[in-house]
């Protein structure tokens, strides 16, 4: 570096120019301000929202509708439904994605059929189907497949080959039916997300791992999936948020242990409709906001060692070292 050239020539004065005007921005600001004011005015002055019904007291001596015991119970149910159906959905989704990518043609076509079916059926219809599935069987249990038919073959009339069984309407009804409908449908979407994630990883990664003697399982668990997470996590966050909202569908199974069901019950008792809907809206907003914040931190965790920011930071550090620490710019 020849420092003389920089000392010989004086630094020209910094550019001071009249900035470009943006009248459009000011017009937009004015329009938005007016609309926001109108909206606030509506919220605050229209007493049909019945804010006290929502927050403070919906009946003599009772809390606001958002905080009554059955509604809070429903909220717990919604959270549990979200967690359990997402857990099943993610686990099953990973399995189906791996099946789909398997060299075994039978496995991959089964996985294809699964995703085809569950992506093509609306969740509400699926939920209702599962709610009524127990019509098909009296009892459900473990035993010989085609047990009754085999029994008939050997002339046994009351043989069913069942080791253990319970009444179908006890097993598949209400919460379990709703959860299964949501989980199985979710697994189909998760399978597609996981597949996209796995396929986004450079094949050189698996090759390097295999060349080191790692097994296919190890390559997947240790090398491919951790990297695929970076691609998988953001859409999965979206799926969880969508799931929170879709749990309201199972109110029609019916699942009683659920937020939307409990709130509609309040409506049915009190004949108050709009404030109840607003109460539901506020709860879903809160739940989803918490999830979005969590998503931000999870995404940050899985992007370590990657991305423009990490590279830019390192490059800037290197340049600083090279130049003796003269650059003091902020790294985005």
């Amino acid at each position, binding site marked *: 570096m020849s420092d003389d050239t920089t000392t010989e020539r004086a630094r020209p004065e910094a550019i001071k120019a009249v900035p470009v005007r943006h009248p459009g921005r000011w017009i937009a600001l004015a329009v938005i301000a007016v609309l926001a004011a109108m909206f606030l005015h509506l919220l605050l002055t229209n007493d049909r929202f019945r804010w006290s019904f929502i927050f403070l007291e919906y009946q003599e001596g009772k809390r606001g509708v958002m905080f009554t015991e059955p509604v809070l119970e429903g909220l717990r149910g919604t959270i549990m439904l979200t967690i359990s159906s997402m857990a099943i959905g993610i686990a099953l989704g990973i399995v189906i994605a791996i099946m789909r990518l398997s060299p075994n043609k039978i496995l991959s076509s089964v996985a294809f059929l699964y995703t085809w079916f569950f992506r093509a059926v609306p969740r509400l219809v699926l939920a209702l189907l599962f709610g009524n599935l127990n019509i098909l069987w009296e009892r459900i249990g473990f035993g010989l497949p085609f047990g009754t038919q085999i029994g008939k073959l050997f002339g046994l009339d009351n043989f069913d080959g069942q080791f253990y069984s319970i009444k179908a309407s006890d097993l598949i009804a209400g919460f379990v039916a709703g959860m299964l409908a949501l989980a199985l449908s979710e697994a189909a979407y998760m399978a597609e997300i996981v597949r996209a994630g796995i396929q986004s990883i450079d094949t*050189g990664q698996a*090759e*390097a791992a295999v060349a080191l003697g790692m097994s*296919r399982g190890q390559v997947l668990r240790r090398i491919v999936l951790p*990297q695929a997470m970076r691609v998988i996590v953001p859409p999965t966050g979206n799926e969880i948020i969508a799931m929170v909202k879709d749990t309201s569908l199972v109110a029609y199974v019916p699942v009683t242990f659920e937020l939307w069901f409990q709130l509609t019950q309040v409506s049915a008792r009190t004949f108050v409709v709009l404030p109840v809907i607003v109460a539901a809206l506020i709860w879903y907003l809160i739940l989803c906001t918490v999830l979005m914040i969590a998503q931000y931190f999870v995404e940050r965790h899985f992007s370590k*060692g990657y991305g423009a920011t990490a590279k830019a930071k390192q490059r800037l550090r290197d340049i600083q070292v090279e130049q003796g620490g003269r650059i003091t710019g902020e790294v985005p």
Partner: protein
Amino acid sequence: MTGEMVRADNVHKSFGSLEVLKGIDLVVKPGEVCCVLGPSGSGKSTFLRCINHLEKINAGRIFVDGELVGYRERGGKLHEMGEKDVAKQRRSIGMVFQRFNLFPHMTVLDNVMEAPCRVKRESKAEVRDRAVGLLERVGLGSKVGNYPGQLSGGQQQRVAIARALAMRPKLMLFDEPTSALDPELVGEVLDTMKDLAADGMTMVVVTHEIGFAREVGDNLIFMDGGVVVEQGPPRDVITNPQHERTRAFLSKVL
């Protein structure tokens, strides 16, 4: 020891209807450095990948340290090896790739420790000492905690060499290890490889670095169109090529 670390007998390999290897014969003795030269598309990388069974060969035999690669011969019949047995064979064959293929989600140290810990199930403390030692040997003792994305190409490739060495291989395969590097970074990687050769490692190196081949190679192979056109001591082949195709190639790269 059979006196032959690698032996290829009449190896053929096709991708669909395209035959890329048309009968390769090769012997690499223990401690030897064998450099493979040739124009792109000549099949040299494919051949290298056949040695550790990353590619299945269609005909012929490849032996590493006397052991048939990827198959077992029983009663005059060939049986395909299961995934586990192939993995076991690969443990003793290190490979370095053109594009490094370090694991970007792991630190440099974890990259080196991964296979000995997970594949060989060696004790972590022991592996860590060895890994740090290897990283110091390739001149990266200060980078153990960095992620690959924070290193230059040359540094990444040296980590990749350390990663392969951590498995204590008896044979190292290099697939154009310097082709993806900026010119000023090539030297550091070649120096690391020279050290390795001086230590007596058996190496098969696919490269375009004629200087390296001449200086370090014990044997040079020139491939073109899926066949070995010429082979011999590097000095002889480079200064006095017998074959027209070798001459044409060397005149372009020298």
